[in-house]
């Protein structure tokens, strides 16, 4: 049967349902996961907002070439005040460069298939946990605006790759100190860890898996795409873990750079 000839039969299957009319009969601690998710994501949102709007100093430690990932690439006039080589672009921008930069990682995470699950459950309670009643009386899913925009996730993935390249360059540049020579410090390792986790998060993305080879019907006709798909599929299985680890580490990297740049702690030199 061809798709065009498919008959769509009407489904009329109403009737009383079994079981008591309660939100859930679950007896386990199903609320622990959504509460934890709300706590961690809220903490990140509060911190990232503070860092973007008000943390416009101490985001760069010139002596060891450590730049906060929230301010990379450093655009706008404010970078001059911290000793960062200002990009020729957006020199007129007087506000925090993080306000421009964070739109892309934020969009990538907001439209990410894993984070969608996390915030639909925890914040929107639709549903808050499996077999627990949806908190809303009507439901249209991702069929209407604004949630239909979740379908542009792959474009945020592309932008995310650009930022991964920029943060990798930052991590490499952190080995080259202004005084000359190649050195390594705890801060260098922190920047490397941050860049690595962001790469793992991006490469394990469902859109990446699809674009690598998931979209083909016939693996045997596309051996290179099949190899790429086989490479990213095990990463994809760990997407949730990479999502959380990269989120926490990117915030901790920013904290570390600020603490070093403000002189609160010393960036220990390894060699």
């Amino acid at each position, binding site marked *: *049967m*061809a*798709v065009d*000839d*498919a*008959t*769509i*039969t*009407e*489904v009329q*299957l*109403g*009737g*009383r*349902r*079994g*079981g*008591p009319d309660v939100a*859930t*009969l*679950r*007896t*386990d601690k199903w609320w622990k996961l959504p509460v934890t998710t709300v706590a961690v994501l809220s903490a990140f949102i509060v911190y990232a907002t503070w860092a973007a709007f008000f943390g416009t100093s101490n985001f760069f430690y010139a002596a060891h070439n450590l730049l906060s990932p929230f301010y990379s690439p450093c655009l706008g006039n404010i970078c001059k005040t911290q000793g960062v080589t200002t990009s020729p672009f957006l020199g007129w921008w007087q506000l925090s460069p993080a306000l421009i930069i964070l739109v892309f990682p934020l969009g990538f995470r907001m439209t990410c*298939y894993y984070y*969608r*699950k996390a915030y*639909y*459950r925890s914040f929107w309670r*639709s*549903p808050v946990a*499996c*077999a627990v*009643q*949806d908190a809303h009386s*009507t*439901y*249209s*899913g*991702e*069929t209407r605006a604004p*949630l*239909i925009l979740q*379908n*542009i*996730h*792959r474009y945020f993935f592309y932008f995310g790759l650009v930022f991964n390249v920029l943060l990798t360059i930052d991590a490499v540049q952190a080995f080259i100190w202004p005084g000359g020579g190649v050195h390594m410090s705890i801060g260098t390792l922190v920047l490397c860890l941050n860049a690595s986790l962001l790469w793992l998060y991006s490469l394990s993305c*469902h*859109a990446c898996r*699809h674009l690598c080879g*998931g*979209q*083909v*019907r*016939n*693996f*045997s*006709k596309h051996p290179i795409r*099949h190899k790429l798909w086989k490479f990213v599929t095990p990463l*994809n*299985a760990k997407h949730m873990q990479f999502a959380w680890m990269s989120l926490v580490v990117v915030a901790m990297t920013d904290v570390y750079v600020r603490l070093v740049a403000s002189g609160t702690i010393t960036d220990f030199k390894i060699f």
Partner: protein
Amino acid sequence: MADLTMRIWRGDQDGGELVDYEIESQEGEVVLDVIHRLQATQIPDLACRWNCKAGKCGSCSAEINGMPRLMCMTRMDQLPDGPITVTPMRAFPIIRDLVTDVSFNFEMAKRVPAFNPPPMPEGGYRMQQIDVERGQEFRKCIECFMCQNVCHVIRDHEENKANYAGPRFFIRYAELEMHPLDTNDRRELVREKMGLGLCNITKCCTEVCPEHIKITDNAIIPLKERAVDAHYDPVAWLGRKITRRTKRSAAEAAADRP
């Protein structure tokens, strides 16, 4: 001495209630064993659907302490202390006691445009092993319909039932879409009429699947990405306009054939 309380839903289309039954526990039992002992000793009129007792027929789906599970695969010693609540699947109309009318799923099954291979070439159809392996996971489905039951799109919103295939049939659509010999393009059908966009990927279907099929990661999300290819991606749309290709032309399907 009775040391176990089974709280079971008794009722039909006219209504019902949870009723407590006291029974002695026995070592090594699953929930279905206790239900059968209750039938044999106290409530011979208790309605319960079952068949294989081995987790392979998908008949004894119910909700145990509020979570969809197979009664034959749920060990009593792994449940917490206290009364054990057993209720019928919540998303489907009740027939009696623990038995529900799952006809919704059969109606949705009828809607799936069937496998549509090209004319048989000389020597028969041939497929490479890597293409065969891809769909194997989806064929493990035992049609217990617990994924359909737990999906809040229809569990909590009856009005969506008319236009929502549900996780069990999304894996069928995905299997067919990934089949190298199939010539149908179901992407628009799934997006427009089967409610793919209603799924908000909260992964409850994957959590309850007794066959551990990665329904969301391996079927629903790939289908969503294919729907993006066919409908939402502006660059893909522009590419089709420039090359004047249909979304999946017959020539493209023919080129993909092994």
